[in-house]
């Protein structure tokens, strides 16, 4: 099939950006969206033009690199699917497709469709872990974890850190990402000792990075390639309230 792509081109962080229109000819419906972009790039290079820069690596929907706003939907039309796992059979011959980068103050554009998502790493660095230095761990079966708890934790832990939730949220909020990590660790017995510090520090960092707040639009959940539920945000709020309540015992709680 033949498609018309309107792709956001931006030479660099400080540069002006604009949409440029490209024709993608005889695209097979068994191709992935990224393979279509590859085809466009091959064509551009042949014409001596600069190929479109976009993040990608695993192409299996697990590394979280790929990140495209396709026709106004983060990761495109198919639900629970990362851009790299989106196949062209979801489009029709002659379709016009708009491709934009994630847009958020916390995700500055580096080039074309590539943005800097370092803020998400810093949220994890602020407290998204269980303090357990290497060595000295007790026998794994010494800690019992109810299957239900393990499964629920796994649901939240499935987050691939792609940032689609931020991109889709009208407030540019990283609530789903942050809450998913807080839920993953907070649901497990191993995560209890640091539960309060974790939520206080991570939320403080999330605000520090200039992400917006959650007003429950639910867009993030729909965009999430791992279909993580906004229920985790409710859990984060609950944890935050009880942690804030006991903050005094926690001297310097959210500072490392």
């Amino acid at each position, binding site marked *: 099939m033949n498609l018309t792509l309107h792709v956001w081109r931006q030479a660099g962080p400080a540069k002006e950006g604009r949409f440029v229109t490209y024709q993608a000819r005889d695209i097979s419906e068994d191709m992935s969206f990224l393979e279509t972009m590859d085809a466009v790039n091959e064509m551009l290079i042949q014409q001596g033009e600069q190929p479109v820069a976009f993040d990608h690596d*695993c*192409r299996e929907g697990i590394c979280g690199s790929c990140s495209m706003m396709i026709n106004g939907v983060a990761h495109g039309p198919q639900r629970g699917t990362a851009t790299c796992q989106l196949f062209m059979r979801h489009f029709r011959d002659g379709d016009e497709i708009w491709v934009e980068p994630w847009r958020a103050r916390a995700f500055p554009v580096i080039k074309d469709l590539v943005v800097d998502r370092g803020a998400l790493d810093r949220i994890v660095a602020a407290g998204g872990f269980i303090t357990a230095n290497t060595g000295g761990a*007790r026998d794994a079966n010494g800690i019992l974890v109810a299957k239900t708890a393990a499964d629920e934790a796994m649901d939240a832990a499935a987050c691939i850190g792609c940032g689609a939730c931020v991109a889709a949220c009208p407030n540019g909020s990283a609530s789903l990402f942050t809450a998913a990590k807080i839920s993953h660790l907070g649901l497990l017995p191993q995560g209890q000792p640091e539960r309060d510090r974790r939520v206080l520090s991570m939320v403080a960092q999330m605000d520090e990075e200039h992400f917006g707040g959650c007003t429950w639009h639910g867009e993030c959940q729909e965009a999430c390639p791992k279909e993580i539920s906004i229920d985790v945000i409710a859990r984060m709020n609950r944890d935050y309230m009880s942690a804030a309540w006991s903050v005094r015992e926690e001297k310097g709680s959210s500072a490392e």
Partner: protein
Amino acid sequence: MKLNSRIPDGPIEQKWEKHQFDMKLVNPANKRKFTVLVVGSGLAGASAAASLAELGYDVKCFCFQDSPRRAHSIAAQGGINAAKNYQNDGDSVWRLFYDTVKGGDFRSREANVYRLAQLSVNIIDQCVAQGVPFAREYGGLLANRSFGGAQVSRTFYARGQTGQQLLLGAYQALERQVGLGRLRMYPRTEMLDLVLIDGRARGIVTRDLVTGAVTSHAGDAVILATGGYGNVFYLSTNAKGSNCTAIWRAYKRGAAFANPCYTQIHPTCIPQSGEHPSKLTLMSESLRNDGRVWVPKQQGDRRPPDQIPEGERDYYLERMYPSFGNLSPRDIASRAAKRVCDEGRGVGPGGLGVYLDFADAIRRLGEDVIRERYGNLFEMYERITNENPYKVPMRIYPAVHYTMGGLWVDYNLMSTIPGLHVGGEANFSDHGANRLGASALMQGLADGYFVLPYTIGDYLGANKLAPVDVSHPAFRDAERQVAERTKRLLSIDGKRTVDSFHRELGKMMWDHCGMARNEAGLKFALQRIPEIREEFWRNVNVPGSDTELNQALEKAGRVADFLELAELICTDALHRRESCGGHFREESQTAEGEALRDDEHFAYVAAWEYTGEGSAPVLNKEPLDFENVHLAQRSYK
């Protein structure tokens, strides 16, 4: 070159413990005075970087992705082995050790493998403490599955995302150190050269992929954990960015490259449809626990699977390997698939595929159980192929998956360059000529959490290292070379894209150095590869500049290195006239067409030494002697 494997003496059970005692320690107060450069943030790199920072060393960690969490380990699906014997089914450190040596077709180093089996136990403890959500039984104990032909259930897993969860555990430990200011992470940064001073690895030269800035980093020890080089075949299950650049540049600085030809072809991948695929997708091997592999009995039978009666189906794995059946090891299963397809009995477009059928399992266990076990894998399959595996049998075909070869390392994981350590898939590893399923995650984490933190300390404690900084001429020199190479790539301005060269190379390798290899084919490849390389440097088109994010340039540098590595792979494959594990030489097979080893002539590690542009690499041999397991022709019948 003298290869000293530094295997401690004493009985195999005590080697590691004794060695730990003999190793030098670094005074806690002095640790932060030592800078350790860790290249790679996968399981091996992240775990090593985090553990070393926890110990107090000054650590810098590098990766080319925009976040350390995206290292390719994230894609591992099936699980991780450990000799916990939680299932009480007779597993033990010794059995895991034995299975690994046998699975590797007796081409690995006993002492290393035994240590790996010992440490496997600690890995699970560590990961659970970090909050890795492994699958659980209702009682709250850890669940296990049997995997990749193992006859005990020793594989721990987290849905189909084990690698992701293990990496996130290591990544979180790493980010914690970043938060504490003890570790500096350099994402979107690619190592382009290794710097030696007085014969020791003292630093690296990197390119900032965003600004293009070429920078030097000095250190007291360097760890490469940069993963495998399967992408030399263009199409593989590896991530697009996976590359050999770091280890290849190290090789050219004097590190020996061991067993480059040992590549693993994974039997259960989604067959490629047409010419466009940019990568191949793995379907976790765990599927073979319940799926039955078959092809039609008669050639060119194009009927849809449901119209082929039971009697006209050939469940060839069950037929050829009654005791292991559908669970026979990867190399065996892959070659069997190739054989039936070569006979013209393959299914699907191009006849390059075999059925993986769940009909029986669904009848036996019910669709819900199957969904519970493989739901997400089935979804991934349907997403890609648009076929529903609950109704139609899956189609699978082998694809390049893992590289057992890599930089040669001694018992301390140190290469032939003092101070240069190598962990994870990047080293020639403990898997011999073939890796068992769920053992790479185990090895990566054993290296990073439990081996390197000790052996790095030993190296730093035992050697008086003169202080160096990046003003040293050796750094200037390396920076210059890196810059020149980049300029050259950009200046060619030819007609062909980097990808077209990569495709051509990949096809060449797959056809002549893939699942089955023979002298003629390898010689042909060895003659063609230099020609392709020559055209590459004459006719490649790399747009853009070197002072910006330039993905075409990144690719070009990587493919240029693959074009050199490919030649070494074929050279190694040609010299090893035996068949072993993943390396199948048609000249050396049994009457039934099974791999036939030649222990008399080839029971050694082939460590290749770089001797300069245009001159042939020198072969060094590390003899492998087996004191604890006796060499036997592998049989899974």
